[in-house]
């Protein structure tokens, strides 16, 4: 395992271009044991305010739980476009995410972000990759996140399943959101995630999708924000992305409070049997 400290956050655009150009040649079953880290990452308050407005958080100093993931996205891209990385970044699908916040993150905190690629696992529809993100303030680990991505390809039918998502709460919708056609472009502007599958129907079709889809991290953040202030403090949220949200569309939030915390799901308004994500939150 090697740790490499980058001088600053990389620029995402060129990395995604490189990822697209080098996608075809990538193969192998070994993920290099490598951690990339960036020190002294400062939150740009204008970008944070734009993110907060778009995801339904109040504009404040409290950094939303998914936001360090957004900050570290460029570092993830850098890691996954290294020549020895076995998987192609374009077309990779975000399946799951678990985030723990150890203390409320303040926008003034200088963060040290690190990204570590974990192992490859067989999956019914290809292979999954675990990626671990950490945020430190000084020596303190304040935030940690484990993401699971699917690299689509030849699947293994008898692959062991990971943790399955809890059942989506039944019952009536508590909130309805009409997601506009340009939501992906709006979110790309505040998050830097300019993956073409979120931007335009034609670009998405070229990547094998029927239409362009909402960023999973937007649907996750919007759902968390709707659950109140809990996730701004010490807490753990888990999300399972089950079906993409095509744009434009209407989605509805269903939620339930259990002994272990809140469970929420986002489902299609037109077809409530389609669940887009399931989320659990405990403090």
């Amino acid at each position, binding site marked *: 395992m090697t740790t490499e400290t980058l001088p600053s956050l990389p620029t995402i655009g060129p990395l995604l271009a490189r990822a697209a150009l080098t996608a075809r040649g990538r193969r192998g079953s070994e993920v290099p044991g490598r951690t990339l880290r960036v020190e002294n990452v400062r939150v740009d308050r204008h970008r944070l305010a734009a993110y907060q407005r778009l995801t339904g958080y109040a504009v*404040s*100093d409290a950094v939303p739980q998914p936001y360090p993931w957004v900050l570290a996205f460029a570092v993830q891209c850098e890691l996954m476009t290294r020549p020895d990385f076995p998987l192609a970044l374009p077309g990779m699908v975000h399946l799951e995410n678990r985030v723990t916040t150890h203390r409320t993150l303040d926008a003034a905190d200088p963060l040290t972000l690190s990204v570590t690629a974990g192992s490859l696992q067989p999956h019914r529809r290809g292979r999954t990759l675990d990626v671990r993100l950490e945020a430190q303030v000084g020596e303190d680990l304040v935030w940690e996140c484990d993401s699971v991505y699917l690299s689509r390809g030849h699947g293994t039918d008898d692959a062991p399943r990971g943790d399955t998502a809890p059942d989506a709460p039944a019952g009536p919708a508590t909130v309805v959101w009409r997601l506009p056609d340009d939501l992906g472009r709006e979110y790309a502007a505040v998050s830097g995630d300019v993956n073409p599958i979120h931007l335009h129907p034609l670009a998405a079709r070229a990547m094998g999708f029927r239409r362009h889809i909402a960023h999973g991290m937007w649907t996750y953040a919007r759902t968390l924000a709707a659950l109140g*202030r809990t996730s701004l403090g010490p807490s753990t949220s888990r999300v399972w992305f089950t079906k993409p949200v095509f744009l434009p569309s209407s989605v509805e939030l269903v939620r339930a409070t259990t002994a272990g915390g809140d469970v929420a799901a986002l489902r299609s308004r037109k077809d409530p049997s389609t669940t887009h994500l399931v989320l659990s939150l405990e403090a």
Partner: protein
Amino acid sequence: MTTHRRAAVLGGNRIPFARQFGPYAEASNQDMLTAALEGLVARHGLAGERLGEVVAGAVIKHSRDFNLTREAVLGSSLSPDTPAYDVQQACGTGLEAAVLVANKIALGQADSGIAGGVDSASDAPIVVPERLRRKLLRLNRAKTAAERAKAAVTIRPTDLGVQVPANTEPRTGMSMGQHMALTAERWGVTREAQDELALASHQNLAAAYDAGFFDDLMTPYLGLTRDQNLRADTTIEKLGSLRTVFGDGPGATMTAGNSTPLTDGASAVLLGSQEWAEEHGLKPLAWFVDGETAAVDYVSGDEGLLMAPAYAVPRMLARQGLTLQDFDLYEIHEAFAATVLSTMKAWEDEEFCRERLGLDAPLGSIDRDTLNVTGSSLAAGHPFAATGGRILATLAKLLHEKGSGARGLVSICAAGGQGVVAILEAA
């Protein structure tokens, strides 16, 4: 008349005030009010608590913010079962909200409540010109294609445009500063006296910060930890060098230094009955003794726009059997330095007190060392509806420090020729 129970001021919280288009330029009224509220909730351990009510408002408000205060409550850690409503009485909003909450507590209709206010001069609603608005509504009402076409062709390129709210009295077309300049001239308020008051405001506010006075009255917000408008190092020379911005000719006295700037900010004050405070382990800082509102006819020119508190105070004093000198501390909102000085001159003026207030003798003067002792709006800034909460929390804490029985007077002028005043007494 004091058969009902008393309402206590238990604490307050605000975010530092920022200059227009400063660090809060992208924060909405709801964002700022939520931040002020959440800080108050955190400091007093009110998370999950159902309060009697939360009352607040904003002077410059988007039409979508019809339930601004309720939305802020829902965005806070208070129990979602806490009701809320909006009030709006121009710059008197925050204090009027406190009068309403205190009255409900006094009457036993509520045991606790939060009064607050917020204003953004940066995130202002933009509206289309009135003529265009009417034509668009007509177009919207049209049922047939012919009606729609007829309505559409009436829209001319010259109708297009946007309007931002201005600090102007609708009935007179004059800005608040222009109105104030008339009053300042009427009372012969000098440039020097105004600059001295402004200097004292900055010096007092800076000293209060240095002494840590605001540590338990404020939550940092968007990187600000102090009021952005504060100029701790300003001097009488610097203030004297500014050009005048309101009033005409050589007699003009009002500058950007002795007038409050446009500001963004929010404040909130926690009130409750003595029993409720005890149950929640909170200590009353001051009792909310009384409040009074007044209005004057500024439209005909009979009285100055910002002179209503000069009328409200003597009415409240008479009701309470107090004189103007029966107070340990005075908080007179510095809309302009000239507002404070004109009001005090009026109270000292025998003719005004006899003919306008119907008193046998002038109310007299107040000791300047007891006026706005931790600074006021000239230094802190003045996000219209947030000023009442700032003053109430400050005065309640100051009185509490002075000790039981200490009395304080609050006076806040408001647009529309209105004024809200109140009396606090240390608990």
